[in-house]
């Protein structure tokens, strides 16, 4: 908890309900701040953790995700005016990924909306949104409450994740379809006398089969312990943010402050990004009625794009971190820049997300990336060919299969 007596720069970072468990497993004590919490960047080794996501199951503590409960007679109308998707289509038990914009159609944040019951929603966001939500609530009969600290959240992701959850006793988990959520009960202790109930959603940030568990903070350690106990013989690993970042790039997901800066935080004019520029046009429903930014986005559609976030497949094996992109090998004329990059161990491809100028956004276009190679402290500059390819880079059928394969 924040303490009144201390200035903000002396406030300790919060510890999530999984912190003690994470600390015990961490080999290199690599913690980083995230939304006011201290969280694990790497437990052991990035690649090792990455392979838990793709080949077995991973546990990722996402408690710092900012969570809001939205209720009241106008909750639906409020949300539909806030976000770019049509929330009227979201039935109880469903989850939707969406974004929201300011008046200029610039992206403020992305997140997930859970419909719990009619006019009762939970919204999970990357950054704190209370100010914007309250501005958006003027004229609506709606209550907005932040519940970040009241809910512990754990992502269980990977091809064996359904099996793992079944093994700890979450009966019926295999019937949960993508972007659905439900209440589940985990038996606890000998004979399952005590029971832990939690909300589980089939959502995630890995592009793989996976679930997110939303529970009372008091139950967090018991759930972690149960999963780790059952998972000890199944190659289950806790993972940090670095491994997750590799998986999310393969899945083609965007991250605030890496692929875009929230319009609430930009200082330089022209660095804001619209959802259309981020390649998220599929999230924008112009037919649903008015939402904040709609008129600006309509104008943007009419004007045509200036730039767009695309997927790049880059020659060679060196990730193109922060690379500038050029129209040709000579490197005289810029065509954009890389926002996220990774070597993909699963695709065996050198991947990147990049913001590219309009003439080069079509799939199949070629741009040139300027990459610096460090050969034992001897630096070399390389201009390598980068092809614009479809996203997601990695989309296994298992991410959607219901029931999941019984591995």
């Amino acid at each position, binding site marked *: 908890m924040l303490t009144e007596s201390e200035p903000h720069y002396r406030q300790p970072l919060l510890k999530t309900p999984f912190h003690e468990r994470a600390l015990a497993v961490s080999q290199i004590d690599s913690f980083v701040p995230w939304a006011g919490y201290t969280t694990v960047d790497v437990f052991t080794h990035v690649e090792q953790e990455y392979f838990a996501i793709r080949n077995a199951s991973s546990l990722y503590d996402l408690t710092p995700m900012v969570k809001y409960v939205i209720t009241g007679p106008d909750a639906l109308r409020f949300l539909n005016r806030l976000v770019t998707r049509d929330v009227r289509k979201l039935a109880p038990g469903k989850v939707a990924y969406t974004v929201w914009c300011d008046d200029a159609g610039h992206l403020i944040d992305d997140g997930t909306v859970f419909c719990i019951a009619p006019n009762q929603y939970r919204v999970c966001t990357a950054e704190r949104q209370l100010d914007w939500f309250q501005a958006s609530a*003027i004229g609506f009969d709606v209550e907005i409450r932040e519940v970040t600290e009241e809910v512990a959240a754990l992502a269980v992701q990977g091809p064996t994740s359904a099996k793992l959850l079944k093994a700890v006793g979450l009966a019926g988990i295999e019937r949960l379809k993508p972007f659905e959520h439900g209440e589940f009960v985990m038996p606890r202790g000998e004979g399952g006398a005590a029971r832990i109930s939690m909300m589980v959603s089939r959502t995630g940030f890995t592009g793989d089969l996976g679930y997110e568990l939303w529970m009372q903070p008091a139950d967090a350690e018991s759930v972690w312990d149960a999963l780790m106990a059952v998972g000890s013989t199944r190659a289950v690993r806790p993972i940090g943010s670095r491994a997750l970042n590799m998986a999310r790039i393969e899945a083609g997901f965007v991250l605030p402050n890496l692929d875009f800066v929230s319009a609430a935080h930009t200082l330089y004019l022209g660095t804001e990004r619209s959802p259309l520029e981020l390649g998220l046009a599929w999230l924008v429903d112009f037919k649903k*009625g008015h939402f904040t930014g709609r008129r600006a986005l309509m104008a943007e559609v009419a004007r045509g794009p200036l730039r767009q976030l695309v997927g790049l497949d880059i020659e060679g094996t060196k990730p193109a971190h922060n690379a500038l992109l050029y129209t040709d090998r000579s490197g005289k004329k810029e065509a954009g820049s890389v926002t996220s990059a990774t070597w993909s161990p699963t695709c065996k491809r050198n991947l990147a997300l990049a913001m590219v100028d309009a003439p080069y956004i079509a799939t199949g276009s070629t741009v040139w990336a300027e990459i610096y190679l460090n050969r034992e402290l001897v630096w070399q500059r390389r201009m390598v060919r980068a092809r614009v390819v479809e996203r997601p880079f990695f989309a296994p059928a298992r991410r959607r299969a219901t029931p999941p394969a019984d591995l």
Partner: protein
Amino acid sequence: MNAPARARYDSIVVGGGHNGLVCAAYLARGGRKVLVLEAAERLGGAAVTREFAPGFSVSACAHLLHLMPPTLFRELGLAAHGLKLAAEKLPTVALAQDSHHLTLGPAESALLAERSGRDATALTEWRALLKRLSRALHPLLAATPPRLGTEAWSDRAALLGLGWRIRRLGRADMRELLHIGGMCVHDLLEDRFSLPLLKGALALDAVLGTNYGPRSPGTVMSLLYRVAASQGADTLSVPHGGLGALAEALANAARAAGATLRTGAPVERITVREDRVTGVVLSSGEEIAAENVISSADPKSTFLKLLGSEHLDAGFVRRVAQVRSRGLAAKLHLALDRLPQFPGLTEAALRARLLVAPSSDYIERAYNHAKYNEFSHSPMLEVTIPTLADHSLAPAGKHVMSVIVQYAPYALAGGWHDKRQAFTDRILDTLAAYAPDLRAAISASELLTPPDIEREFRISGGHWHHAELALDQFLMVRPVPGAAQYHTPVPGLFLCGAGCHPGGGVMGLPGRNAARQVIREAA
């Protein structure tokens, strides 16, 4: 939607106050089919004459006519439409407790010279400067404000035009305008004048109807504004029959041009379909379609109540919700059995506008209370006795006194309900210092606090100008960016009330500018 006769009207004007009527008249003269919908049973909005005690009538909100530019009277032919002035070029009398009152107006400099030759000269110079500045600034008020940061030729031309007119003032006046433009009126008066009574009277004009005291920044600007709006005329007049007669003349002008006016027709909501305004729904449920809707209601009522947040972007709604619109002026009406005696003033002199603002500090002290949501213990007053020039307002031999009182906060600490009498007593005590027999002459009284004004005239916050007149709510940011050029983010919806440029008071320019903008955009 069961389709009413589709778009029988080109334009619906919401609200039949003076700006709504002016707008309707100009639209109709521009060849458009116009319908005005007024919620109250009579037209006029805050320019209205009504009975407040049996046999006694008064201009219930604004009580003097001085801001409406002469061009507007001419263009609409208001004299031909029945407007008769009961009194014009009214002098102003700054009341002094020692009965040594100061009369301003025609021949002021001779009167002033008896007390202070220096002040007399300074006042003549100051009036002349104001006149020159107002000529440079008036065109700015009589047109759609330019947008900033656009490439549009018209915006640049408007800004260049303003620059050119200021430059043409010559070096000395231009320097003076830049020097005083951002000052508080108290400092300006200290620089130029010495008589406290004179400074009090001049400071009153800068803060009347605002949320400011003489030491608040920007009060010179509001004074310049007042003079520029009336094309430097700044003469006080009273229509025969009160301000309601002005509304009647405006209504006649609108009708003559072909507009339809309906009273007792409150608009419940402005209808929108596929991101375009389609008309209005009345509280009775009646739907009326039109190509566009022009609202003379204040910005908060228009956007938050009649239109609804859901048709607007959240950032815009936040700006609208933050518009400063809480009124600080109250109105006191007194029915008098006989004319009270003001020692030092003849009956003829009582026809003037009487001010209780003995010094700039007096006003600032009155304002101090308001900062903490208390009413002024010794309020600043603007008093008229309209029955001296217009016997139609009261039974024979009896009189009406109309008083604008500052400061009376909208959100008075603890609420107004049990403090009305205490405040009325404060006002009467203040007046009694100048007219000792006043109380004995009172047969009835009515106090309108800002919440009463909000209720009766349907102005959120009860602010006379709909939105505070201040630098941050001025020109291209009045009432808020995104609605400052009369059109709003929703296609087909326009504003024409006092909340728009150039602002409040019985001025009519917002209505005129808005009508011209609507016609221009339709072309």
